[in-house]
């Protein structure tokens, strides 16, 4: 198992949240194979991954920048852009799909004027697609700010979104 000998670059800013990232890296022994774990922590703390964060994590773990970038853009869980104030996630798993998830997505995109994966220009709502939330028995399911809306229908959903 390779370990990085590089330690010592200081955090990009004096933002206290970097400490949480540092703690995570230390716990993982600054091993390059901890990259995904550290990116998880960084995104949890900051909400997204910007260039500063990617450089810092890469340099601290001894992973070249292009590799960090390759990893961060490979996994759909990571985002390089800040997310909206609210999140609206439409499940597009098979059970939800055959129960009308595409109609829900279309209604939401129309209501908010953004495509899945994007955030409204005012930064209010991010619309996301999920592969399967495991809420198949309530299909089609939509999760708005962590709350699951089962057996969702477009009209009711639009109501909820308007009241956010």
């Amino acid at each position: 198992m390779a370990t990085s000998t590089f330690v010592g670059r200081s955090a990009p800013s004096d933002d206290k949240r970097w400490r949480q990232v540092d703690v995570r890296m230390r716990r993982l022994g600054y091993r390059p194979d901890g990259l995904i774990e550290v990116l998880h922590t960084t995104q949890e703390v900051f909400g997204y991954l910007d260039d500063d964060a990617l450089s810092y994590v890469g340099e601290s773990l001894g992973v070249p920048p292009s590799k960090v970038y390759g990893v961060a853009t490979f996994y759909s869980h990571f985002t390089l852009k800040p997310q909206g104030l609210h999140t609206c996630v439409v499940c597009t798993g098979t059970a939800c799909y055959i129960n009308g998830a595409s109609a829900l997505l279309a209604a939401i995109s129309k209501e908010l004027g953004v495509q899945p994966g994007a955030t409204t220009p005012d930064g209010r709502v991010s619309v996301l697609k999920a592969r399967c939330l495991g809420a198949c028995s309530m299909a089609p399911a939509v999760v708005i700010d962590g709350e699951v809306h089962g057996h969702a229908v477009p009209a009711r959903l639009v109501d909820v979104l308007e009241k956010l």
Partner: protein
Amino acid sequence: MSTDGPDGSAPVRHGRQPEPLIPDGPARASANVCQAAGCLSMGSDQLFETLRAAVLARGLHDVAVRRVGCLGLCAAGPLVEVPEQGRLFERVHPGEPKRTEDLVSSLAGETVAGRSVAADPFFSHQVKVVLERCGTVDPERLEDYVATGGYEGLSKALTSMTPEEVIAEVVRSGLRGRGGAGYPTGLMWRTVAKAEAPEGKYVVCNADEGDPGAFMDRSVLESCPQQVLEGMAIAGYAVGAHRGYVYVRAEYPLAVKRLSSAIRQAERDGHLGPEIAGTRFNFQVEVRIGAGAFVCGEETALIASIQGGRGTPKPRPPYPASSGLWGCPTLINNVETFANIPSVISRGGDWLNTIGTERSKGTKVFALTGAVTNTGLIEVPMGLTLRQIVFEIGGGLAEGRKFKAVQTGGPSGGCIPESLLDMAVDYETLAAAGSIMGSGGMIVMDDRTCMVDVAKFFMDFCREESCGKCLPCRVGTEEMYRLLDRVTTGMATRSHLAQLEDLAAMVRATSLCGLGQGAPNPVFSTLRYFRGEYLAHIDDHVCQAGVCPVPAGPPAGATEAALAGTATVSSGGRP
């Protein structure tokens, strides 16, 4: 603190939660409140607190109120089971006090309510090995697991069996990998056990359950994580590994939380860590969280991901059994496979071998969803027929809809038509029917589902999840998706269909990993059983299910596309 998964998965509550109510003596009645993801998203955590308060307020000292894992009938959540009375209470929404009151008076012995479990075909057809403790133990209490015989298998293996005897027992059980391919588990263990490993070996639990419409592994991890850990530790002993990883999807924060807590408790009580069961065997387990990539379910991609890189697969051979994590021999099994192991060891391989069919032994867990009445998590002996699963366990289709197909195996699987409903569910029969067992998603489709659209749905999935490393999958899935899109929008001719079939055959044969090799399967299986639907779209511009936006009128290509904008013909007019 509460964190949402950025993918929007239900929030996971951290910190202290109210303790379960457990009477000093034997309980007269227990309210087992389901705390798996489905019921939680319907408010079962609040229900637990409400019930607890109500039982305390009524002074019912001999009544238990406990958190348990998945009770199975997810469609009717939030669920509470009272095992002493053999009753299941459905839809106990915390917002409807009447339902809670009924339940409490039943617990107090005043009335008899709820659904009787014994005679219910949803339950009576099931045989529980993997889900043995789902719905009976508290997923976060190791003592519950131990009290029901947990870790007996591990301690038996460590104290009275040699590693080769353990492997022999697994071989004798006939257990095959539950992740999809169905490779005999015992043989794989033996290969890893025999591999030379100057730098150690690893055991990896694949919990990157990515098939859309599948939540078996999630339920097992959320309901009884200890059983999986025990299986891994036994595997570690058998193959000579001292480190294990569980690779879990980031979309399953609750599973991650319960698993992490289970590891801590097991280490605390000496079921994991150094000198397990007083022997010299040591075994450590770490959780690694995926980050949203279906391809990481492929074992070489999973290894790349655990090593912190892009989850792209590698050509096999060499197989992970000889060269896996950091080049060391690595045993990779999925959650359900490991969850079978403790029983195989404690009860013996012959016991599991008596369940199932000639070549498919034991049980299989399915996530039964779609257009069926009883959606939920089930475990059935191998060899039950699809008809029994859909119409008896599943209770048939909702609202008198007409059955059309059942999809198994996820994006690499296939759709099985009505004419094959009486076939037995086992590895070989499913494969012969053009599908696969897969990890256990089973989605029932009715006459409102268009089979071309279903094929397109899965192809859309595959093209988005393709890692992009090998050309046939990267470009082939995209091209197949476009061809399917042509069919559903009435822009296709029969020559497009022929093109689709050729391309599908080529992608299947030449792709680097299972994702690409399996991606054409939904196309092949829908063409095999529902070719008429394709032709109706192409020749007659008709979508029988009324799903696809095929325009009325003569087939495309015969007409000039309309003029649009400045001197342009609107797109796509390839005949």
